[in-house]
């Protein structure tokens, strides 16, 4: 499938939290759109963090877009020149005080490829422990908890975790570690 050709662009808004670009694009059919809006974001990261006791580190905070108080896994954005794994470790430490353990790249997703430029990298951190006090940013007001796998699954099923990039990888984790689902385990192998 052919890509669209960008014939021009203009930045409508450029600030720390939001960059809006208006593109003039030509589709393969020849149709030209003179106002295709693109939202430029840095790379996102999030972490499925599991303690040495097998509990999941989750957070609760107010989210102004949906005006709701949501449960989440730890998440953040890459700073300039920061590798995703370093951003993920930094965010977990800053938001919750948890760190250490074994870290692996678990998956890649994107929130909205039609309009948002960024990818989200999810990391699995196994065997984390509390190593410092949290140092949250000015607009962050985060409570954090540790919950069992069953409790986490319940939060996912009843919509108390609602963010797409978090749910995508959490459902991947649940599918791969569901011992009741013999077919899935045969397909994926028992390992994560």
């Amino acid at each position: 499938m052919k890509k669209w050709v960008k014939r021009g662009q203009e930045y409508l808004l450029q600030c720390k939290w939001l960059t809006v670009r208006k593109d003039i694009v030509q589709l393969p059919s020849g149709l030209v759109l003179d106002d295709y809006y693109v939202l430029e974001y840095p790379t996102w990261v999030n972490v499925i963090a599991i303690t040495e006791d097998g509990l999941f580190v989750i957070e609760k905070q107010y989210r102004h877009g949906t005006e709701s108080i949501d449960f989440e896994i730890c998440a953040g954005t890459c700073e300039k020149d920061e590798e995703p794994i370093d951003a993920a470790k930094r965010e977990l430490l800053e938001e919750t005080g948890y760190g250490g353990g074994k870290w692996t790249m678990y998956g890649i997703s994107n929130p909205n490829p039609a309009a948002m430029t960024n990818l989200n990298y999810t990391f699995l951190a196994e065997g984390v422990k509390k190593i410092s006090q949290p140092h949250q940013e000015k607009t962050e007001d985060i409570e954090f908890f540790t919950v069992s796998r069953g409790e986490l699954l319940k939060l996912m099923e009843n919509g108390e975790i609602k963010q797409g990039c978090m749910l995508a990888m959490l459902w991947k984790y649940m599918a791969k570690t569901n011992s009741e689902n013999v077919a899935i385990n045969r397909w994926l192998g028992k390992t994560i």
Partner: protein
Amino acid sequence: MGWKVLFSEYLISRPWLTVRRDKLQLADGRIAPEYYVLEYPDWVNVIAITKEGKFVMERQYRHAIGRTDFEIPCGIMEKGETPLEAAKRELKEETGYGNGEWKLLMKLSPNPTSMTNMTFCFLATDVEIIDEQRLDATEELTVHLLSKGEVRDLLERNEIIQSLMVAPLLKFFMQEK
């Protein structure tokens, strides 16, 4: 834990983008002077499985990330439509498939930090061809019927990466016996 809106203004109000800037008072009294909110209508998507057990998948170029990936049919709710009506309409328009049994699989948000909308994900089984494809002028997509194993392989190879689609697909695979 909620925040209070002290002042609000619209910076951009276009058919495809609405940007609002809020001045907020946080729970502890601090002021956040510029918080950007993107207002969108709700979205829908559909895991559609034919009577023969094939998944109705699409491939479409996505300009913001510059990639073509596999997707499930999706779209935007129109005014006055229920999520189910929107999902049935989008599946029919984009692929020509319809009928069958429908149920809501999950609801999720692309970005609760700054986007206002939710996505309703449906599972439609035993769908069949009921019409020809009728795409919008800006839609260019191809339709592909894939087996369950092929869809699982795409997920494993990160060839389906739209989070709003990956989440319901994996929930579906997790829950089927």
